[in-house]
């Protein structure tokens, strides 16, 4: 026993042992805290007589949802209602990510443009939208869109598409026999374009000779399906919206809530992406541009072939955060009545009384979406990373 004192002191003076002990203590603390939270929650639920469990997801929802990408009626289950909400979240996030990326890259490059007016306009856009709260922008777009003329005075585009304060009504395409051929043709054209570009790249690396890949690829992807479409006698029927007593019937309805949320998210996130793009481009050493000019590359080719590939390494990691922000910010939908996961979940929560379950579904879904986005962007980042030679 007498020997244990000095040996403990000796072990404590060992840095690795000390680190292990401290880490074990912290871990034990976290586990104890979690265990207490779970036990306390269970106890509180019991004293309040609240039922728990996810069985309620099979119960009928009894409420309607206006925008549904899958079959849903008021007799569908709570689980299906949440799925409809999730798909609406995914739809607006995907649309937003595409638009914000285009907007952000354009504005970021324009801020560095030699054109004084364009550069100033891009700066004004970035500074204005970055510094106004997203919620205000969202309400601004929604108010603007619901300020459009009423249904009876709809703006008409050639009497097939209509715009009013309830959004847009567009003709809905429906496939007729033969349209599958067109789709198959488009698919084959894409495959062919990829093959051509791979071949052109090998040839360029081997011989140094260029090839107009972009023009050929676009020609293939646009030309093949168009030709097939015309040759097969345009196998596509259009369901054109017809004026009804209250609303147009038929066609596709795009609600002002979807458009307002999409624009607000794109414009807001685009401003942040623009700053990332500008920073990325500026991070590429000036010598690279000068070297490219010295080799006789045009300004456009310098940007596309020399600066951007190197800038992407600096742009992509912050871009990932912006994509995550956009997806999570889409939950502001609830403020204008777009029926995303949070909005539908709130209704489910209220009609079923299952707060813990719905909130945990929200957390798990947003966490999952964010992790998937991160995984994909990390993979992309590794792919475009500079290969040091």
């Amino acid at each position, binding site marked *: 026993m007498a020997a244990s004192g000095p040996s403990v002191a000796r072990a404590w003076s060992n840095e690795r042992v000390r680190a292990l002990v401290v880490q074990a203590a912290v871990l034990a603390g976290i586990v104890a805290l979690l265990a207490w*939270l779970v036990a*306390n*929650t269970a*106890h*509180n*639920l019991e*004293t*309040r*007589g*609240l*039922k728990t469990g996810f069985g309620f997801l099979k119960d009928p929802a*009894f*409420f*309607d*949802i*206006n925008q549904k990408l899958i079959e849903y*009626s*008021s*007799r569908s289950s709570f689980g299906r209602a949440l799925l409809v909400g999730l798909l609406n979240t995914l739809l607006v996030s995907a649309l937003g990510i595409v638009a914000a990326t285009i907007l952000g890259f354009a504005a970021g490059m324009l801020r560095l443009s030699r054109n004084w007016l364009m550069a100033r306009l891009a700066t004004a856009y970035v500074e204005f939208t970055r510094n106004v709260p997203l*919620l205000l922008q969202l*309400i601004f777009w929604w108010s603007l869109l*619901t*300020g459009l003329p*009423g*249904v009876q005075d709809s703006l008409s585009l050639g009497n097939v598409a209509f715009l009013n*304060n*309830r959004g847009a009504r567009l003709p809905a395409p429906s496939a007729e026999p033969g349209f599958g051929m067109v789709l198959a043709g488009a698919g084959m054209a894409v495959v062919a374009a990829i093959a051509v570009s791979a071949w052109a790249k090998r040839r360029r690396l081997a011989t140094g000779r260029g090839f107009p890949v972009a023009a050929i690829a676009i020609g293939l992807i646009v030309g093949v399906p168009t030709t097939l479409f015309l040759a097969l006698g345009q196998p596509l029927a259009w369901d054109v919206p017809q004026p*009804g*007593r*209250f*609303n147009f*019937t038929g066609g596709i*309805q795009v609600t*002002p809530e979807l458009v307002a949320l999409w624009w607000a998210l794109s414009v807001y996130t685009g401003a942040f992406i623009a700053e990332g793009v500008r920073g990325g481009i500026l991070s590429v050493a000036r010598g690279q541009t000068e070297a490219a000019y010295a080799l006789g590359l045009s300004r456009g080719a310098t940007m596309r072939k020399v600066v951007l590939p190197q800038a992407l390494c600096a742009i992509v990691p912050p871009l990932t955060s912006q994509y995550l922000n956009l997806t999570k910010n889409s*939950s*502001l939908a*609830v*403020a*204008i*009545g777009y*029926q995303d996961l*949070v*909005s539908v979940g*709130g*209704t489910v*929560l*209220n*009609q*079923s*009384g299952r*707060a*813990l379950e*719905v*909130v945990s579904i929200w957390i798990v879904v947003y966490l999952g979406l964010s992790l998937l986005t991160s995984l994909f962007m990390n993979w992309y980042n590794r792919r475009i990373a500079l290969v040091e030679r």
Partner: protein
Amino acid sequence: MRTPRAWIAAAAAVATVTLSGIGVTNAATLEDVRAAGTLKCGINTGLPGFAYTDDRGTWTGFDVAYCQALAAAVLGDPTKVRYVNVSAANRFTALASGEIDVLSRNTTWTFQRDNELGFTFAGVSYYDGQGFLIRRSLRVASAKELNGASVCIQRGTTTELNLADYFRANNLRYEPVPIADNEEARVAYVAGRCDVYTADASALAATKSALQNPNDHMILPEVISKEPLGPLVRQGDERWSDIARWTLNVLLAAEEYGVTQANVRDMARAATPNPEVNRMLGSEGSLGAMLGLAPNWAVNVIAAVGNYGEMFERYLGARTPLGLPRGLNALYKNGGVLYPLPMR
């Protein structure tokens, strides 16, 4: 103001359920309210007649008066109320999590809310039904003609469910436009985002009264549901739910026996010929003590807000912008369905 309230309330509810102390039980709301010295009362975010701010910025209205009555019964002072504005979508989480002691927000008494959600209704303070508000210029005479219309609807209400049932049963299509509260519904309806606003008839009367030209709008004849509205508390605290129930009953009984805000003090001072009034006002028997309240609890209630009839006329009746008739909400003696329980 449009804010993601549902989020906040839900997060708060979860935090409360997970974090609140193990020793805290449900069964002591009366003691909690006494210790705090104020009653936390959940009310609407704004509904003319039921819960609105007057020109001095204080909350007033039919539902608010019940909060004041309960505070008068428990604390002897109708001003000792902290009002918590809750939307249709977050009211139940607010009550379940203990953020409020009582919910007085035109809430329909349903089987599921009473049983599955774990609440106890104190009774019915207003018998309502769901109707439709629409512009006269659309020339609609019946709800059956609403095929294809856009309908504004508050999320998380019974009206949302009735609407789906009604349109489904009548084989009509519609576009639901979900809204968080009555004020947002008014904005969306005025902006023309929806053709029709559906809610409890009383709420429609309130909304209509606040429109620029109320006569350009009408309420369709169909009443598609029964909506018995009333205050509610958490289940499992019998003492507290009894207090809530009998406070409401005092308001009704006072109307039946002609006890008013003006004469209640006089009637309480000396025994009246009616023993039931004497028991209620505490000059005979000990009803207050049976509830754990002061002997003059009912006097305080009536002195604070008057009897049910006075409350109705003050906030909802013919001389108010809402101009609602008593209808079902008259005493049984006058052709209504209000039947006060005996104070014995």
